[in-house]
């Protein structure tokens, strides 16, 4: 449990826009331990998905390191990367867009096997595809069906099967259930957890849905505008959030009780533009506790307590 399978160090991804550099992911560092699920939460446009994609180099990181099993994959060439991708896979948000509409399920799931030439014989590929379909709860009878004939939940199962085909150790789940309705969400989440238990997988679970993240994660990283503001144990973060943004975020979870205390923190103002952000804390403009130092200096992510990381100058003060 203790070994870090993935370490992300100072990962940055900037996009060029007509107005300037868009800091989608700005100096993000975190690590994931083997066999755990790290939940990555944040509002829309805060760079969660870009982080996930940059880790797999589906978008090229502007700078920074992604150490997978001790090796920095950012330096890998094409062949090494192809090898590395056998161990790190991704499940996409939209099961309608992530499957090639011109391929049937058998072809879609066998693509990873064929591209990486895992088996020599055609028969073995088909057998493996059938096994995978069974693992994710699809009957092999659907082998020749096309994606448009399936509902969202089954399509997402196909996406899961494709990601599992190469026996990866680590899977980025980019909002895998946000396009599905709640009953199907539960099915897919449970399926993912069963598979994790069975195969000992490590997940990076990206979501904006706190209830979902709460359900699956061991540890949680909170992102705000391209930065990780807090990273800690699942229990700790829900019991005692340290960062003012996390506090506001968690207070927004509706409590289904009549007598629930109404202590929701309403943030004022809008999320500032990630294009050419100024120095200082990204959350400065909306923070209840802001002080001059917050504007002057960018707070670094630091270990406040063992295993609890937070990027705020005022934690000590606020916790008192």
């Amino acid at each position, binding site marked *: 449990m203790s070994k870090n399978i993935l370490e992300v160090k100072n990962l940055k991804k900037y996009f060029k826009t007509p107005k300037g550099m868009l800091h989608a992911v700005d100096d993000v560092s975190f690590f994931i331990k083997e066999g755990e699920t790290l939940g990555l939460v944040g509002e829309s446009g805060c760079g969660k998905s870009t982080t996930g994609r940059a880790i797999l180099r*589906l978008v090229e990181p502007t700078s920074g390191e992604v150490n997978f099993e001790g090796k920095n994959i950012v330096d890998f060439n094409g062949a090494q990367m*192809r090898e590395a991708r056998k161990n790190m896979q991704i499940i996409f948000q939209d099961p309608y867009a*992530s499957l*090639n509409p*011109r391929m049937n399920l058998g072809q879609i799931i066998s693509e*990873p096997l064929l591209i990486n030439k895992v088996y020599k014989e055609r028969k073995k590929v088909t057998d493996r595809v059938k096994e995978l379909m069974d693992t994710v709860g699809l009957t092999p*009878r659907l082998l020749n069906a096309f994606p448009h004939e399936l509902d969202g939940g089954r399509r997402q199962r196909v996406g899961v099967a494709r990601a599992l085909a190469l026996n990866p150790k680590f899977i980025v789940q980019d909002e895998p259930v946000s396009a599905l309705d709640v009953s199907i969400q539960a099915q897919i989440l449970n399926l993912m957890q069963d598979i994790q238990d069975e195969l000992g997988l490590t997940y990076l679970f990206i979501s904006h849905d706190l209830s979902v993240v709460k359900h699956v994660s061991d540890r949680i990283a909170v992102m705000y505008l391209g930065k990780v503001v807090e990273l800690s144990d699942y229990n700790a973060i829900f019991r005692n959030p340290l960062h003012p943004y996390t506090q506001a975020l968690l207070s927004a979870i509706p409590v289904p009780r009549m007598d629930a205390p109404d202590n929701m923190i309403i943030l004022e103002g809008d999320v500032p533009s990630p294009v050419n952000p100024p120095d200082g804390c990204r959350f400065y403009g909306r923070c209840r506790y802001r002080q001059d130092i917050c504007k002057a200096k960018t707070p670094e992510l630091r270990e406040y307590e063992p295993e609890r990381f937070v990027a705020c100058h005022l934690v000590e003060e606020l916790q008192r």
Partner: protein
Amino acid sequence: MSPKNENKDLMDRGKKPKAKDLTRDDAVVKNYQSQTEIHSRPGAVEGKDLDVRTIEPPKRKSQWAEVWKRLIKNKAAIAGMIVIVILLLTAIFADFIAPFHYETQDLQNVRMAPNSDNWFGTDNFGRDIFSRVVYGSRISIQVGFIAVGVAMIVGGILGSVSGYYSGRIDNVIMRLMDVLLAIPGILLAIAIAAALGPGLVNVMIAVGIASIPRYARIVRASVLSLRDQEFVEAARAVGANDFRIITKYILPNCMAPIIVQGTLGVAEAILAAAGLSFIGLGIQPPIPEWGAMLSTARIYLRDAWWMSIFPGLAIMFTIFGLNLLGDGLRDALDPRLKG
């Protein structure tokens, strides 16, 4: 065809167990569970009474079969197809259909009106116009399909490269295409044909080059819209290289507009070739080409109308058929367009 029948293969889950079966007969229950798409417990079946590897999926019709089914429902498309099939048969069996060879001259009977021997009359050398129209179909089909084929392949490669890689390559290729597009197609074909000299092959080259930009643009536009789709990203995530992504993920998804443009393009190529022949830059006599026949017939229009009418009708019907087929294909390939 009702949707029920269509999904029969997919939705066939075996017999649904009755309530009493559920409680009493385990075999029935197991059979039902194994047939449902979502198992109650993933992996539960494996290694017990049923090996998943032995489950054979039902055979499926290909997507092209579906397209074909929609196509033959369209009456106009069938009409177009019949015309094209007749044209193809005429071209293949020209030797058996034509009563005379296209070069056979009968100088005693020049410019004869249509009669029982010469159904479409004879021309200014006494050649049988019916035979020449029949043989002419070979030339037209060759020019039409080969020119479009060349344009489609070259334009397709250029378009997919420039759409997929974008950036500088895209700019270079597309500005070149703009240069070609800036010159009216027929003018460009005339210029190329004039530079290369007349002849069948040169006509195909000229017409082909003139229509490359159109395919390049269509393919580029489709590739651009598909390039950032998640399924392309998914392919990259499992290690697919660019060639595989373009050929297996992008191009199959932009076939519809290319095929439609191709069918309509054949008609235009035939017309352009006829135009080139008409002004003397195309196929040279005595090879019978419809446009060239029209061209020679022009000076006899007052007293030998049959010399121009029949090759003209042949061109017209061919274009008509191809256009109907092209429209039908567009509807069949993209059922959403019809609403």
